[in-house]
Structure formats: structure tokens, C-alpha cells
């Protein structure tokens, strides 16, 4: 249907975006409303994913299991193994508060764990005690709810002081139909009203004697006042929201509306007689829940599905949803207009007739195109249909208004049909393109003989040439299947230069045809004085046009004058962003040139030369008559002397090793030991030597 993918090609950029805005503004912001279907079931399976066989807390487990139960997905077997022990533990523990017991009993009502009657009786008596002592709405809610679940298990539960409990709960109500959470809090809340109504319904069904009719009547009035505070969106959906937004307690319209629906439908089940709620409000609430589509969070999905299941068969009025399975009707494939009327979960509606009150074109505010067409019913597919071909509807966007009439007049109170329903639909068809001509004209009035015919059903390869004194002219006609003139949303002519600089022109339409005349004299500056080959492309598109196209028409060789000094430069073209992942420029590093070393032979020669003086030293020593005469002769001093000289030699060896491969720390470590040794030995040797010299002297 849509040509938007075509038009959204990178190079159409701004104009394509503008067209999208125009198209979206003409739709009055309504979400398409369809009953609950397979998509919700898949979404539930995707969102509610158990980790290690459980969904988390018991509250979350209940949300998951109840959603799956309503949508018909079997999950109990998977979950009961890990969750039943938790439930049993909570029910048997003496420290569980009413909230824990309530959630445990709720989950158990779906899973059906093996719990013996004694546990239930103990829990029931605990909850009865809570009801006697408390005056908080939430405690009442948990306790009464818990007792209802226990009663379902077959245990006989009676609320002894039904009237008293009823009064305690009713005492928390406010004059505008809202409820407070307990007698201490000053703020009232719509969400609490939903909880209170549900709890009152539970009290009425559990009480030992029947609750007085007048009391029921008072609550019915409260409900009417509560419904006076309902809010609405532009598309006709209705919802409940809190009056004051308290950041910590704010629950959002979905949760608040879900709570009210729960409360009202529960109360309607136990109350005799009718609740005075207009059918339109129930339908508006149903539409609100359906218009969300598929929620993204588990809590929202649970609220939506659970509220809709309460609305599916409630005692106030059951909403019937009228929707179009397909909003696009093609004249080419001779589609029929199909309308579905079902309950919110897609179940069959009672016998009824759908009538199309009016069909008018969305863009014209004038007279409707069709009026009062009755749709025929196909009982095999439970669909109401209408053949539109004989009705001579042309392509375009239409606003259709439908009305439902129930066959059985008694159903008027049971079902909410909602009066007139407005829906949007597209009729699409194949548009014929006729009398297409293109040519180059002189600036004085050109004659039409220079124009050549163009076949716009396929790409062309024209080769035109023009200078700045000439004009390019293109014209064609667009005809709908019914033979009328067609004005699509997008008719663009694009000229693209070899350097990828583009210029887009919108073609104007006169009464009978689309045409454009590009006067190059005036466009020279816009083209940045770029001469050369320009590729020509034509785009024609519309939502109702099945054969929207983008055609390459060939190229035109433009000869434009030289740019003056101050001319604007063409904008830089975007670089392919993937180029940055290619190989980069080679970097040539500049290293520090290594120092010039002397030739090896020179170095070796000087090494030898440096060792020469040592030889000279030794020769000199010998010439001087060095001798070892005063070397000690007796063993112990001799040993010390030898050790002294050896020690010095070892230290020098250590230094050589240090130079070659050791580091300073190891050397110092070695030196420490050797130094101590050397000092000791040297001291002994030298003192012996000194003493012998002194003895010689004195003698």
C-alpha cells in the first residue's frame, strides 16, 4: 500500500519527511482497536518467563498464571513444583500477615497444590481475626479475598459480622465516590475505590445473613458518583485516573481503571438489580484497554487481560467491539469491505446487523459519498461484508461511520454497542499515467514539436542537452480507475549532478495534468553554476496508489556559465560512513638516527692499549723488587691472609658479574655478606701484620 519506503530513500530527505508529517496529521491520532488475539498470547509467553521454575514473588506468580489461564496457556505443571512448597510454607507459618496469606491463596486457586483442610481452617480463623481488629482497607481486602478463595476450596466460611464489616469499609468512602485507605489518611484514591468495591462484594457473598437492600443501594450511588469522574481521550476511549498525582503512590490510568473495573464487575455480580452505569462508559473502558495494543511490561499485560476478561461477561453490560480486519481495500483485487463485531476477546456477538451510515472522503468536508448501506452477514466466517465495486468508490482515504442494531431488543441492556463508530479505511487502485511528454524549449515560446513522448511505465534513457538559456519541460496526466483526475501526495522531479549534488522540484498540477518547466536561467545560482551531466528521476507516489514509482528518465547535459567570485559552493556530499573502517594511510615513522659507533677494530685496539699500562705496572713492580717476605708463615695468620686476598678477589669478581648481568640489589646483598667477612678477616690479618712489624721495630 504505502509508497513511503520508496520516498524514504536517503536522497529525498526533507521532502519525504514533510510528506510523512502531512500524512500522519490527516489521521486523528487513534490507535486501531482490535479484539484480543494470538499476538497477545505470544506476548504473554515472551514477557512472563519463569526463572528456575518460578515467576518471582507470589504476587508476580499470580499475575503470570492468571494471564496464562485467561489466554488459555497451560503453565501450572511447570510452576507448581517450585511454587507449591512456598505456598504451603506461607500458609502454615504463624508469622505470615494477611497480605502474604492472600497472595498464597490466590496462586493456590490456580495451581491446586495439595493442602489439607486443617491448614485452610487455621488460615480462615486467622483472617477472621484480622477482619475483626483492623480498620485498614487493604487489610480488609486481603482478608475477605483470602476467605473467598478458602470458600472455593470447599471449606465452610461464614463472616459472622457482615454488617459490621460492611460499615467499617463504607466508613472510609468519600462523597465523590473515592475511598480512603484507612481512617488516618486524608487523601482518597480511585484505585482504593476499586479495591473497596471488590471487598464489599466479597463481604456480601460471605455474610451469614443477607445484607440490607438499602445498603446495596448506597454503594450503587457511590459507583455512579465514581463514574462521574471518568476521563476521556479524543478517540472516544474512557479511563480512570487519580485526581492528585502523589509520586510515591501514583499507579497510572491502566492500573487504576483495572482496579475500578474489577471492583464494579465483582459488585455487579453480587448485587441484585441493575447498576445505573451507561453502556457507553463500559464500551469506552473496553476500548481503552484494547487501544493499548500489546503492553510491554508484565504488570500492564496482566491488568489489561484481567480487566478485559472481567468485561467479557459482566452483569453491567458486555461491550461489543466493531473493527475492520483490514483497513486497505484494493480495487485491483476486488476486495470486499469486511467488518467484525465481537466481544473484547473475539467471541461471537448476539445476532445483529451492521449498517454503514456514511462514507465520506477524508480530505473533503463536503457531502458523503455513500449513505445507509446495510452490510450482509457471512455466518460461516462471522463477518459482515459489503461489495464496494458496484458502489463506484474511487481511490483515496475514507472515513466510514457504522451503526450496530441488535436483533433481540432484550439484548439492548445486556450489550453495549456504542451508537456510531468512526473508522478509517484506504481504497487503493492502479493509477494510469497518460500523455507523458518531455523536451527542451528555447526561452522564447517553444513549440510543442520539440517535445518527445515518454513511457512512464518503465525507466527511460533519454539524452538531452541544454544551456542556461533554455528550459526543460515535463508533463503528464494521472487517471484513477474510475476515470477521474488523481492528485497524489508526492510528485517530485530530481536532477542529480555527477558529483552527487541533488536538486528536487515539486510538480504543480493544473486542472487536467501535472507539469513542470525548469527555466535554467533562473536556476543557475541554485545549481551552484555546476555544468555537466545531470541524471533525471521522477517520483510519483500516494498511499492510495498501488503502482507508485521512482523512474530514472535518463540524463540532461547542462551547460551553465562560469561561477562569479562570490558564488556559493555546492554543499559537501556525505561520505560513505563505512569508509572509516577501511585501511588507513600508511604512517612513516621518523626514528632517531642511531649514533655513529666507531669501527670495531679501533675499539679493540684501544682495549689492548688500555691494558698495556697494567703490564707496565707489573714490570715496574718486578723492577722495584717486590717480594712476599712479610707474608706470615704460621698457618692461622697465613690462612687469614689468604682469605683476605681471596675476599678482595671475590668482591672484584662480583663487580664484574654486576656489570655483566646482575642488578644493584643482588649485588648489594652479596656485597653485604662479603663486606662483613672481609672486614673481619682483614682486621685479623692487618692487626697481626701490625703486631709483627711493631715487634721487629722494638727488637
Amino acid at each position, binding site marked *: 500500500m504505502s509508497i513511503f519506503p520508496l520516498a524514504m530513500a536517503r536522497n529525498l530527505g526533507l521532502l519525504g519527511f514533510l510528506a510523512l508529517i502531512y500524512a500522519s496529521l490527516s489521521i486523528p491520532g487513534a490507535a486501531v482497536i482490535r479484539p484480543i488475539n494470538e499476538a497477545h498470547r505470544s506476548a504473554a509467553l515472551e514477557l512472563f518467563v519463569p526463572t528456575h521454575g518460578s515467576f518471582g514473588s507470589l504476587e508476580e506468580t499470580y499475575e503470570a498464571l492468571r494471564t496464562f489461564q485467561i489466554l488459555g496457556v497451560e503453565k501450572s505443571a511447570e510452576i507448581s513444583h517450585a511454587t507449591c512448597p512456598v505456598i504451603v510454607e506461607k500458609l502454615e507459618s504463624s508469622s505470615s500477615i494477611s497480605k502474604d496469606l492472600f497472595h498464597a491463596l490466590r496462586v493456590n486457586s490456580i495451581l491446586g497444590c495439595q493442602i489439607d483442610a486443617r491448614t485452610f481452617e487455621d488460615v480462615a480463623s486467622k483472617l477472621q481475626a484480622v477482619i475483626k481488629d483492623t480498620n485498614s482497607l487493604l487489610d480488609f481486602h486481603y482478608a475477605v479475598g483470602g476467605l473467598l478463595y478458602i470458600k472455593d476450596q470447599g471449606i465452610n466460611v461464614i463472616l459472622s459480622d457482615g454488617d459490621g464489616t460492611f460499615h467499617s469499609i463504607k466508613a472510609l468512602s468519600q462523597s465523590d465516590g473515592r475511598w480512603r485507605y484507612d481512617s488516618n489518611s486524608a487523601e482518597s484514591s480511585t484505585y482504593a475505590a476499586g479495591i473497596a468495591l471488590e471487598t464489599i462484594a466479597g463481604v456480601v457473598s460471605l455474610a451469614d445473613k443477607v445484607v440490607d437492600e438499602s445498603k446495596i443501594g448506597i454503594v450503587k450511588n457511590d459507583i455512579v458518583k465514581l463514574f462521574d469522574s471518568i476521563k476521556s481521550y479524543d478517540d472516544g476511549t474512557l479511563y480512570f485516573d487519580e485526581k492528585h498525582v502523589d509520586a510515591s503512590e501514583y499507579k497510572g490510568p491502566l492500573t487504576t481503571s483495572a482496579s475500578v473495573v474489577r471492583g464494579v464487575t465483582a459488585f455487579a455480580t453480587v448485587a441484585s438489580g441493575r447498576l445505573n452505569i451507561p453502556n457507553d462508559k463500559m464500551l469506552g473502558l473496553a476500548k481503552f484497554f484494547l487501544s493499548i495494543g500489546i503492553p510491554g511490561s508484565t504488570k500492564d499485560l496482566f491488568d489489561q487481560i484481567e480487566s478485559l476478561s472481567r468485561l467479557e461477561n459482566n452483569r453491567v453490560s458486555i461491550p461489543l467491539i466493531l473493527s475492520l480486519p483490514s483497513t486497505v481495500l484494493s480495487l485491483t483485487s476486488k476486495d470486499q469491505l469486511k467488518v467484525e463485531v465481537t466481544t473484547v476477546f473475539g467471541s461471537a456477538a448476539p445476532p445483529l446487523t451492521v449498517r454503514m451510515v456514511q462514507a465520506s472522503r477524508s480530505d473533503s468536508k463536503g457531502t458523503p459519498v455513500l449513505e445507509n448501506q446495510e452490510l450482509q452477514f457471512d455466518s460461516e466466517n462471522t463477518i459482515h461484508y459489503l461489495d464496494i465495486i458496484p458502489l463506484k468508490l474511487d481511490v483515496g482515504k475514507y472515513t466510514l461511520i457504522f451503526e450496530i442494531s441488535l436483533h433481540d431488543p432484550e439484548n439492548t441492556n445486556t450489550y453495549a454497542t456504542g451508537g456510531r463508530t468512526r473508522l478509517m479505511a484506504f481504497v487503493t487502485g492502479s493509477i494510469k499515467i497518460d500523455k507523458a511528454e518531455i523536451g527542451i524549449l528555447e526561452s522564447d515560446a517553444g513549440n510543442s514539436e520539440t517535445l518527445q513522448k515518454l513511457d512512464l511505465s518503465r525507466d527511460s534513457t533519454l539524452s538531452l542537452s541544454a544551456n542556461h538559456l533554455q528550459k526543460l519541460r515535463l508533463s503528464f496526466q494521472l487517471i484513477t480507475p474510475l476515470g477521474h483526475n488523481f492528485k497524489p501526495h508526492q510528485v517530485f522531479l530530481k536532477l542529480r549532478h555527477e558529483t552527487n549534488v541533488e536538486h528536487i522540484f515539486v510538480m504543480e498540477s493544473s486542472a487536467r495534468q501535472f507539469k513542470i518547466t525548469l527555466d535554467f536561467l533562473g536556476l543557475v545560482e541554485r545549481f551552484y553554476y555546476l555544468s555537466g551531466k545531470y541524471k533525471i528521476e521522477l517520483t510519483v507516489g500516494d498511499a492510495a496508489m498501488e503502482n507508485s514509482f521512482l523512474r530514472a528518465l535518463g540524463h540532461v547535459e547542462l551547460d551553465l556559465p562560469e561561477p562569479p567570485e562570490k558564488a556559493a559552493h555546492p554543499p559537501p556530499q556525505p561520505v560513505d560512513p563505512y569508509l572509516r573502517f577501511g585501511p588507513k594511510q600508511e604512517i612513516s615513522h621518523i626514528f632517531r638516527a642511531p649514533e655513529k659507533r666507531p669501527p670495531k677494530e679501533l*675499539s679493540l685496539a684501544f682495549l689492548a692499549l*688500555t691494558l698495556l*699500562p697494567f703490564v707496565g705496572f707489573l714490570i715496574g713492580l718486578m723492577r722495584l723488587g717486590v717480594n712476599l717476605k712479610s707474608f706470615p708463615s704460621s698457618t692461622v695468620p697465613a690462612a687469614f691472609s689468604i682469605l683476605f686476598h681471596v675476599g678482595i678477589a671475590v668482591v672484584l669478581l662480583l663487580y664484574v658479574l654486576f656489570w655483566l648481568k646482575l642488578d644493584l640489589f643482588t649485588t648489594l646483598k652479596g656485597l653485604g655478606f662479603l663486606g662483613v667477612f672481609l672486614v673481619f678477616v682483614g682486621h685479623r690479618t692487618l692487626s697481626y*701484620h701490625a703486631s709483627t712489624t711493631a715487634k721487629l721495630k722494638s727488637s
Partner: protein
Amino acid sequence: MAKSTSSDAQMLIRSLRTAYAATPTNLKIIDLYVVYAIVTAVIQVVYMGIVGSFPFNSFLSGVLSCVGTTVLAVCLRIQVNKENKEFKDLPPERAFADFVLCNLVLHLVIMNFLG
């Protein structure tokens, strides 16, 4: 007069020689050692003059090792010389021990700086 100056110089040298011959042997050993160290230093400087001072730390450590050991030897000579009244009470073995120790420390530093 030139002849007298040259003969004066010759006489000076001869008297120096005879005086030097009278020094004790151990002092002569030390003097020989000093000469040896200085000659080594000079050879290293000549080498550096030829090839340039590229590993400057090596050059420095080499030259300073020679110079340092020269200095220590001169100190030893002063302390050991019996005619030196200042160090009369210092036993020569003690001076020699100081000489050995200081040399070892000097050469540790030199080896570290040699690179």
C-alpha cells in the same frame, strides 16, 4: 749561559733522581700505581677524543675510576709516609685498610655507572 741552564737542568734532574732513590720501596710502589692509573685515564681520554663521547656515562665512569683510585692512592701515600709528622700515630695497616675499603666502594659506584 745556555750551557749552564742546560747543565743546571741536568743537575736538577740528577739530584731529583738521587733523592727519589732514597724513598722507601713501599712509597715507590704507590707512586708506580699512581702513574699507572694516570696513564690509563689519558689513554681513555685520547680514545674519546677520536671516537666521540657517545656512551658518555661509560667514558665518565672509566676516567673517574682512574682519577678516584689515584686520589685514594695519594691519600694512602700521605698517611704511610714516615716523614709525615701529622700521621705519626696512624698505623700503616689501618691506612691500607681504608684504602682498600674506599676503593671497593668507588668501584661499586663505577660499575653501576658503567652501564
